[in-house]
């Protein structure tokens, strides 16, 4: 089995983002997706701190402290980009103007619930940022995450045990092992990495998955 690395996962997500899409990439892993949008495909990247039309990372030494993304990394602006204030930025999100957001997650449930903001540990300091707005606002909520936790538990779950970020909002999950659609009747496997068969994916996932073979059966 060949697990996908972070860049392969990002490339797989990028493949599903069509020309003309308005997209918000979450902090961390999802940010990598920007590097894999095919040359010449115009995709408009939004960041919740008030910018649309983010370009590539600035050259070393050309960073501007006033031009950052939601992860507080320096970015650039494409010709055709624009700036706006926070209420307008979240109007774009909450008002369902973004075609896609890509979020990391601790867990995704069969119903499409996502948990990604808080471990729920009693001594943890909670921090939510824009995650809940994105989860409830984007037309399509895509999740990118490892399939399993470090201790080998599935991050696809029947019910989230971590506090929810949003309920019934995830449409597709990209893991290092598979791509899975979430539909009203459950989780449907779209792709599996080479060398992993569906039975094994089903076994380690621990939640009922559907696949074209099983659909036919």
């Amino acid at each position, binding site marked *: 089995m060949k697990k996908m690395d972070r860049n392969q996962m990002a490339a797989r997500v990028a493949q599903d983002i069509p020309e003309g899409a*308005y997209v918000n990439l979450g902090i961390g892993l999802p940010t990598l997706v920007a590097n894999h949008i095919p040359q010449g495909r*115009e995709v408009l990247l939004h960041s919740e701190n008030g910018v*649309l*039309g983010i370009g590539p990372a600035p050259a070393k030494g050309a960073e501007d402290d006033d031009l950052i993304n939601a992860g507080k990394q320096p970015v650039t602006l494409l010709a*055709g980009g624009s700036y706006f204030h926070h209420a307008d930025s979240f*109007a774009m999100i909450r008002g369902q*103007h973004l075609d896609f957001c890509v979020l990391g997650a601790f867990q995704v449930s069969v119903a499409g619930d996502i948990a990604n903001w808080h471990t729920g540990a009693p001594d943890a300091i909670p921090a939510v940022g824009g995650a809940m707005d994105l989860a409830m606002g984007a037309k399509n909520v895509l999740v990118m995450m490892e399939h399993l936790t470090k201790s080998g538990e599935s991050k696809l779950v029947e019910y989230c045990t971590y506090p929810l970020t949003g309920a019934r909002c995830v449409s597709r999950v990209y893991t290092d092992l598979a791509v899975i659609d979430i539909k009203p009747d459950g989780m449907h496997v779209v792709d599996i990495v080479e060398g992993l068969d569906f039975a094994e994916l089903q076994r380690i996932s621990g939640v009922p998955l559907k696949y074209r073979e099983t659909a036919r059966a």
Partner: protein
Amino acid sequence: MINKIVPSLEAAVADIRDGSTILIGGFGGAGMPSALMSALIAQGAKDLTVVNNNAGNGDTGLAALIAAKQVRKIICSFPRQADSGHFDKAYRSGELELELVPQGTLAERIRAAGAGIGAFFTPTAFGTQLAEGKETRRIGDRDYVLELPIHADYALIKADRGDRWGNLTYRMTARNFGPIMASAAKCTIAQVRETVELGELDPESVVTPGIFVKRVVKTGAAA
């Protein structure tokens, strides 16, 4: 390559169907998308619900759309004017339904639709006829009325300059309802005086980012 600039007014309004809800920009003549209005009259969609501050002046624009019997309902704040004859006639004959909304509530309901707000409490109109039958609530030391967003199928607006990504700037008080209407419709169509290359609009001064705009059509200064 994304290109929201469409070649003609006809193409811009071609898919508007009977029964659509349409936000129409403008306050008086300033910002009125006259060229798109003429195209909509030629196109002929009927049974429309129209949202505008007024209900048409003289014999052009919204007044002409009413005269052509394409409008079933108007949501507006100020229908009665010296030259609103076409509205007056259709309203008095019972052909045209009127929903009267205070101007700021009209603007905020449109903005709420664009911003994904489900409803909001406003102090405006509390204790008046226009709040009759509406839910009210005392919050702190003020009384409020609950109002719902106005979502639409189309917005027809007039801007000054636009680019192929749909970014728009406006001119003076012609800005009025344009930016909020652009955000509240499934399909926003902007007529512009001038189209420019990507990057010619200052990113600090773009008033309507292209995310809110589906089609841009150039009319020149005259329309």
